[in-house]
């Protein structure tokens, strides 16, 4: 009986520490944030103990907030698209490399993850600034200096740089599982290199691309450091908006409401995308 009860409790004990952490560090703060978002707020007296839906109503009716949400969505989608366009070929080339070089280039791709996002973003702001290296180069070849810093372009450039490893790694993993002879088989059947890539290799890395784009989209939509440093004071994204509501306006309930809306929107988009693409890929790839 003792043995039996201990085998029954073993899974709970093993999962316990992780579950406790998850509850204490994710679920509990999230629940508190949800509750906070319904509290009324008064500019002179602060958070009230009465409940209201007004913060949600404000957010979804005010064009100021909607514009920021729309911008967040656009920037995250664009970043995901560019990451896929660069990351997938990059992963393919990486998977076809021979060993000393493959390790070197894998390190080059993962390397940036070892540097803090803030440091990297400051790097970009120096490069993209009005007297930065990019503008100096533009002037050198005779172009007028462009305003890049504090635009969406700057945010997208830096986000792509930060997010690229999250696209390359899942795609590369998917490519590793591919039998290289499958591509050769397509050639012997008359397919050109390009057709073999399009018809045989690409469909098999869909799942890798899918998980990569979900990670990139989710992280981009909630990115804070990059838009805060490269978007400036006026070009806000969802995360910087929440930060401002909390720390500048001191309107915590409104900040909480925005955070919850961003979370729910992000979840909806990712789940819908996942269902749409993954269901199809799973059906054929198993």
């Amino acid at each position, binding site marked *: 009986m003792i043995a039996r009860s201990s085998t029954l409790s073993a899974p709970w004990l093993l999962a316990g520490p992780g579950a406790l952490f998850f509850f204490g560090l994710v679920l509990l703060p999230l629940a508190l944030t949800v509750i906070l978002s319904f509290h009324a707020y008064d500019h002179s007296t602060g958070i009230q103990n009465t409940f209201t839906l007004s913060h949600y109503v404000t957010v979804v009716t005010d064009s100021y907030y909607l514009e920021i949400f729309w911008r967040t969505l656009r920037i995250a989608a664009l970043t995901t698209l560019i990451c896929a366009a660069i990351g997938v070929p990059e992963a393919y080339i990486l998977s076809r490399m021979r060993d000393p070089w493959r390790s070197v280039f894998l390190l080059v791709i993962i390397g940036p993850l070892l540097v803090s996002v803030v440091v990297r973003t400051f790097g970009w702001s120096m490069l993209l600034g009005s007297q930065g290296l990019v503008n100096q180069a533009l002037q050198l070849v005779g172009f007028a200096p462009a305003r890049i810093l504090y635009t969406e372009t700057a945010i997208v450039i830096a986000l792509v740089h930060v997010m690229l490893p999250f696209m390359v790694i899942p795609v590369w993993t998917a490519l590793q599982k591919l039998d290289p002879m499958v591509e050769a*088989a397509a050639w*012997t*059947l*008359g*397919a050109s290199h390009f057709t073999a890539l399009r018809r045989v290799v690409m469909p098999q890395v869909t799942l890798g691309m899918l998980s990569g784009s979900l990670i990139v989209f989710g992280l981009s939509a909630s990115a804070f450091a990059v838009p805060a440093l490269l978007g400036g004071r006026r070009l806000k994204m969802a995360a910087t908006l929440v930060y401002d509501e909390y720390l500048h306006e001191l309107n915590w309930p409104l900040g909480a409401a925005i955070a919850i809306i961003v979370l729910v929107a992000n979840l909806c988009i990712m789940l819908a995308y996942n269902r749409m693409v993954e269901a199809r890929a799973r059906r054929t790839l198993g």
Partner: protein
Amino acid sequence: MAFLTLEGVSKEFGSFTAVRDVTLTIDKGEFVSLLGPSGCGKTTTLQMIAGLVEPTEGRISLDGRDITREKPNHRGLGVVFQSYALFPHMTVTQNVAFGLEMRRVPSAERMERVREALSLVQLTSFADRYPRQLSGGQRQRVAIARALVIAPPVLLLDEPLSNLDAKLREEMQFELRRIQRKVGTTTIMVTHDQAEALSISDRVVVMEGGRMTQVDAPYRLYEQPSNAFISSFVGKTNLLAGTWRRNGTSSAVDIGGVLLEASAPEIAAGTPVTLSIRPEKILMRDAGAGRLEGRVASRFFLGSQWLFTIDTPIGTMMVSTPNQGVEPPAEGSPVGLDWSPANLRIIAGTAAAAA
């Protein structure tokens, strides 16, 4: 008439020579096997014919056309890979249709030819399955159908049966031969399994260390192996090292003082030679009635036959006898060994080292 020819084809990978100076002529409709142990260059040779590996030297031509530098997608050869390399995201039908699609065969004709190919390999009822839903033998047949449907001038098979279990492998050997006979496609198969090569090929090319060492019909290869390596690699054999003796018209091999009568006209007396005799060519007699006395060291029952190892004054010999339904001599009992001198193969000189 020479259909596919390889002239002095070599392949070097850095300082390593995988294939050395292979020259081979294959006729239309022929079934040729490249046989050898792993690392002998047989797969590299096949890949050079397929266009997946570019030869360092030499020339490959198909039906009078030089294809040495042609890209694999222009050669139009059918290839069955060892791993089958099916497209996992396509159904059986889509897999087989792929080559026709690449050739822009109109859809109605394409479907008709796919159906024919699937019925040839007896997979009609599996047309809509995905490769992962098929067994090993079925996948292998899809790979054959996919390669054959484009009506290739040459079919290349890379160890097509090595991933199958023993019983299925035997069935597929006959299946492969049946299909090849029916379609009449010139076929080159790479294998390390001598039984497979012997049973289904018209000719067998033995490769060793990147070189071709013998090209012959299976029966002749088995009966007249050109060196000690081939005689032990193709089938089982007893190899005995000795010295060639000649006394007037009679000649014999001297193995540790025992003289075994044999004939081989071209060898000078005193030359060290290797003698080869197949286990099934040795007959087992009562003690004292044979050419050589021995004692049964062990015996193995293989169903259709018995395999003995017998201790004799000239060393341990393998002997196999058909199962006649009577129990043969037990372990430890004395026996006499007999054979027809014509079945002793003399392999000259240093070849013993290769065994």
